[in-house]
């Protein structure tokens, strides 16, 4: 059955149950062809199960998997033009590197598999290791072999199951750049599963944040970061300060954590139309400033006491205890502004348009 490669993946109400446990709860997802897509979430959120269902290694309990116009739900792993870079790499220990990389091509009966495999090895800069065994290679090299072994088949979709999890930080950063370069070179759709938010944001054009088997929010990294739809997303992607509020009139909210409530201005465009109960105002640490001198009237203003100071070089991180006991985190760039001392009383302020409003978690 010859088909035109599209690389466009669509999941329709895809579910996976294990007895009573629902691993994936009817997700709908469109992954456009040629994109670098990340499935991000904490362990146990169903992201790996979703990936394995796309690979054909796990069977859906319900729903469909579409590759372009074809329903591939009922096909088996070896029949799908989808390849996986496994978390443990899963390199065949009894085969040489070149035979590992050529494994898929030989199954596909590609005549010049050897030269194609060598090309793929050259792409990951391991051509000189072709005749060695996997165990003779370092972790980072094995990772690159696993990538070459998958990519050499020119699958419609490449699945990456936390492929950088076993690497140390420096190597991981290098590989992130490498993966992005390769993806733009070959133009295959990449679906990358990870629990590392920084990794997902650095690499992917689109990120889907998963939680308890469903997709919590989907969008470009900047969009997710600046406009998280839920408290979960706000906390999973970086740090956030969340304050319980109630809207009392357009553009003004009152903080409900204290009585009498403190009034603060809220930008109307940040308020979601659908939620009205249990609202929280969220603000990222790097968007909070220490006010020196007066604060403009249309800016929020909170007073607290510095309870912790840590200097990181690039910036100074503060913990500020507010009057109702909540600790606010804020990051002050090392741009020459004067630093606050431990125990000092400070005033915090931010641009209301940089804040966001989410419902209770």
């Amino acid at each position: 059955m010859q088909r035109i490669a599209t690389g466009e993946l669509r999941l329709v109400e895809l579910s996976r149950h294990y007895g009573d446990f629902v691993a994936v709860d009817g997700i709908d997802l469109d992954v456009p062809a040629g994109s670098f897509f990340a499935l991000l979430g904490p362990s146990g959120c169903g992201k790996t199960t979703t990936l394995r269902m796309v690979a054909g290694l796990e069977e859906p309990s319900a729903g469909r998997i579409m590759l372009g116009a074809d329903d591939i739900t009922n096909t088996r792993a070896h029949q799908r033009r989808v390849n996986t870079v496994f978390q443990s790499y899963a390199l065949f220990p009894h085969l040489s590197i070149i035979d590992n990389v050529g494994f898929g091509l030989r199954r596909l009966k590609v005549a010049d598999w050897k030269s194609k495999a060598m090309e793929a090895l050259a792409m990951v800069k391991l051509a000189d290791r072709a005749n060695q065994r996997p165990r003779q290679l370092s972790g980072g090299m094995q990772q690159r072999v696993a990538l070459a072994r998958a990519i050499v088949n020119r699958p419609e979709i490449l699945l990456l199951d936390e492929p950088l999890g076993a690497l140390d930080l420096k190597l991981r950063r290098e590989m992130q750049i490498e993966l992005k370069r390769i993806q733009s070179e070959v133009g295959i759709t990449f679906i990358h599963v990870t629990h590392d938010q920084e990794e997902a944001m650095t690499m992917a054009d689109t990120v889907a944040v998963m939680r308890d088997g469903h997709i919590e929010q989907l969008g470009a990294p900047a969009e997710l970061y600046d406009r998280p739809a839920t408290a979960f997303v706000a906390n999973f992607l970086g740090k956030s300060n969340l304050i319980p509020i109630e809207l009392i009139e357009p553009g003004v909210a009152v903080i409900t954590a204290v009585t009498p409530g403190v009034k603060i201005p809220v930008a109307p465009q940040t308020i979601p139309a659908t939620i009205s109960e249990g609202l929280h105002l969220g603000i990222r640490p790097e968007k909070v400033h220490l006010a020196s001198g007066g604060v403009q009237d249309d800016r929020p203003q909170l007073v607290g006491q510095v309870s912790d100071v840590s200097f990181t070089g690039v910036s100074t991180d503060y913990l500020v205890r507010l009057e109702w006991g909540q600790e606010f985190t804020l990051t002050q760039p090392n741009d020459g502004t004067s630093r606050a001392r431990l125990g000092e009383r400070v005033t915090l302020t931010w641009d209301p348009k940089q804040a966001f409003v989410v419902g209770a978690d």
Partner: protein
Amino acid sequence: MGSAISTALRWLRKHAIIIIGLLIIAYIMLPNIVVIIFSFNQPVGRRNGIWHEFSFNAWTHICAPAGMCDAVGLSLGIGVVAALVATVIGTMAAFALVRYRFRGRGTTNLLVFFPMATPEVVMGSSLLTLFIAVGVRSGIATILIAHILFTLSFVVTTVKARVASMDPALEQAAADLYATPSQAFWRVTFPLAAPGIAAGALLAFALSFDDYIVTSFNAGPSTITFPMYIWGAAQKGVPVQVNVIGTIMFLGAIAIVAIAQGIGSRKSKVEA
């Protein structure tokens, strides 16, 4: 002086396990060395227990004692067939037991374990009881049945351990790389399990070739295996040629493993 003693003691402590290990190896080797030395003996009378004179006689006339070489041939044949059958059906069972969850799996594991937990004399006598009850004449077939039975459990256990230690992601990777289930089995699963299967087969052969007790219950009057031959000869004095066979088997086993090792290390050297 005192420091010399304490240095010696410290050295002894540090190397104690090596010294003990080597002593135990020597203990294990001792009877084999005796067997080898006495294969060159020219004993006085029938008993090959006291050193008399060096001679190649037994080595140049291996098949001189009546019936001995036939017995060795029979044992080799039985060992090969029993190991082959036990390895095939044992490997199949091991895969089923490791790779599938099904009702009765625990019972099956227990059933596999029981023959290992049964003294040979009980196994031999119960098989004989059955053969008598159904009127089967003892012979090569009954010996084979018995040998396959007691080697089977060892094969299953050995292969099971190997298969259980294999990363299931490897087979998934094979399927992911377009291998059909049968290609995945023959190109990935089987080569990875092969060392365990080979070890199981070798163990099965060794156990079969070595067995006296079970065999003595199930052998017919004309099916004298090598151990039975030795047992029979032991009463009146074992011929020197028995030591020759023992030596050949011992050195043969070491040679096989050494060759396998050599191939393995040459391979990795070429790759390195």
